[in-house]
């Protein structure tokens, strides 16, 4: 029980770090903690060899994002503190709503509550993050957050070597895209 609560608490803090950080290094660090957390969660259900594929592919993705960002100059447009605070408050609100609705969803998806709650909160954080940020690499981190969250839920439902392999490939390919797009301020086109 304490261990499960600790896992939930750590995942929420790591997600909060990713969401509210101004420095890409800190965001990437938060993402790395989340991949480690997924490994700890999945290892309880799957064999270590299969679970480690998730950790390794995640860390490879992080290396690819870091390699793409390392020579990029820091953006002149620094995110205001109020926006970071807004993102955090919005995330906390969503996590609270999820805490209330997770038992109902648990009737649909018969997996452990810890995995379900962590999965759902990471999916929602990923969606929130990618919709609120401006830079392409941040949006891609948001997509990765979403995928980590779904991975926690789906791994608890089904253990397939092929799905794990394809999922790892998808994670790596998405990370590659972070270096493909340059930093660009969000364009909102009208009709």
């Amino acid at each position, binding site marked *: 029980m304490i261990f499960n609560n600790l896992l939930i608490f750590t995942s929420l803090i790591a997600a909060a770090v990713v969401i509210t950080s101004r420095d890409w290094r800190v965001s990437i660090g938060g993402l790395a903690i989340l991949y480690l957390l997924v490994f700890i969660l999945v290892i309880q259900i799957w064999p270590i060899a299969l679970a480690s594929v998730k950790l390794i592919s995640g860390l490879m993705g992080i290396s690819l994002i870091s390699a793409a960002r390392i020579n990029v100059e820091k953006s002149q447009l620094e995110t205001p503190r109020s926006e970071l605070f807004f993102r955090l408050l919005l995330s906390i609100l969503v996590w609270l709503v999820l805490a209330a609705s997770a038992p109902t969803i648990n009737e*649909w998806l018969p997996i452990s509550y810890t995995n379900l709650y962590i999965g759902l909160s990471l*999916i929602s954080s990923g*969606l929130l993050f*990618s919709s609120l940020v401006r830079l*392409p690499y941040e*949006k*891609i981190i*948001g*997509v990765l957050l*979403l*995928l980590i969250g*779904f991975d926690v839920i*789906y791994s608890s*439902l*089904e253990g397939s*070597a*092929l*799905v794990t392999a*394809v*999922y790892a*490939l*998808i994670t790596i*390919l*998405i990370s590659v*895209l972070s270096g*493909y*797009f*340059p930093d*660009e301020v*969000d*364009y*909102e*086109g009208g*009709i």
Partner: protein
Amino acid sequence: MSAPVIWIVIPAILALLLLFIPTKKFQLALFFIICVILFLATIVVKIDSIGGVRFYEFDVPATLQILGRRFVLPEESKGLIRIVFAINAFFAGIVFFLDQKSRLIPLGLLFSCLLLAAYSVEPFLYSALIIEIAVLVSIPILYDQNADRNTGGLRYLTLQTLGMPFILLTGWFLAGGEITPVGQEQLIQAVVLLGLGFMSWLAIFPLHAWVPMLFEETRAIDSGYVFQMFFLFLFLIMLKFFNNFVWFREYAPVIQAFRVLGAFMCILGSAGSYFSQSPQKKNGYILLHIIGILTVSVGIMNESDISMFSQSALSLWAGFTLLTISSAYIQSDLNQTTSPGSQNQSAREFLGSLGLIIAQISIAGMPLSIGFSSTQNIYLTSAKISNVLIVLLIVSKLIISVVSFNNIAVLVIKNQWSLSDLNLGKKELAFLLVLIFFIIAGIFPGLSLPVADDLISGFQNLIQ
């Protein structure tokens, strides 16, 4: 050697090998030859033939097994394979003629193979993963590295990624549902998940905003090619679900949702194309209109038959292809070194605009156009179902017609050309031939019917 090896694995490997060829023209020629060979292979290769084969034919199994999953391309899917490689060869020809910089050579071949793999994989839930990889492969086709505007592309990536979990979860919910009937609660859960997944994939309202944005940010030929293939396969995968799950296609709320959302998308797309200032965005909105029409045709399929879908799909995609290549032709005009106002440029502008008008008229389903008979079929069936539906469809088609009339007005009033002044070079003549082909196909719609039947021959349960 099996059918999936011939039409999925080998072309995918060849596409990757083509990446290492430095000369663009040689790469393009090889791409074209590979597509033609794979197209012709559908004639000499028989899949799981029951009787004997002729001396020039080969018999291959339909199934390829990888780690317990099966990729199945039966004899009935050869029509689709032909269409896929014909589209690839056609677009290679267009890239050659327009002399445009495009990444669809050779990545388009890999993209098509991935979509074919997604269509053929069993159990179907794995198609979600393969489609996600296809989406990731399509990004380098659509955008150059360091493209200065990419918001539409990032939204496309995010929403397509969001669709994957829903479809995977549906697959888990429906495990065994193909054989045994599912309970009411399970049915509702599966329908909700599948609906959300397809809404995300098919850019159904309110998840549609990325389409016009992306069209504005990318080259017309690339976005036209990618989304023509992508949405064609998504609709075919959706029909595969309908074909396999009897209870799903007979569940009233699903059919109702298809009709309502489809009609809404028709109006949204046509209104967007009317109000849009940018020609590229206009194309994006017209694509949304096409998605709407196809969604409606799936929704009213029960009242008629599946051939209505295939005929609509074929005519609308043909119209959209012409729209794409006409836009690309006009874009290539802007990129060419010909001096503005020259006779050659005038001919291109004239022919490109004419192509746009014919394409829009076809999509609007006007008489003597390629889309006329299929649009009439949809009207006829919709009229039996609901007055509101038929009114919405007619209004949306009227708006598309107004867009094309607007283009005609611009062509006739703003540009005071005399046809005798137009200097037709080789490219202009080739484009003129394409236009004549489209006009003939519109006058004789029966010519395209066998191709439409080929598209749906694999869905035995849906053919009434």
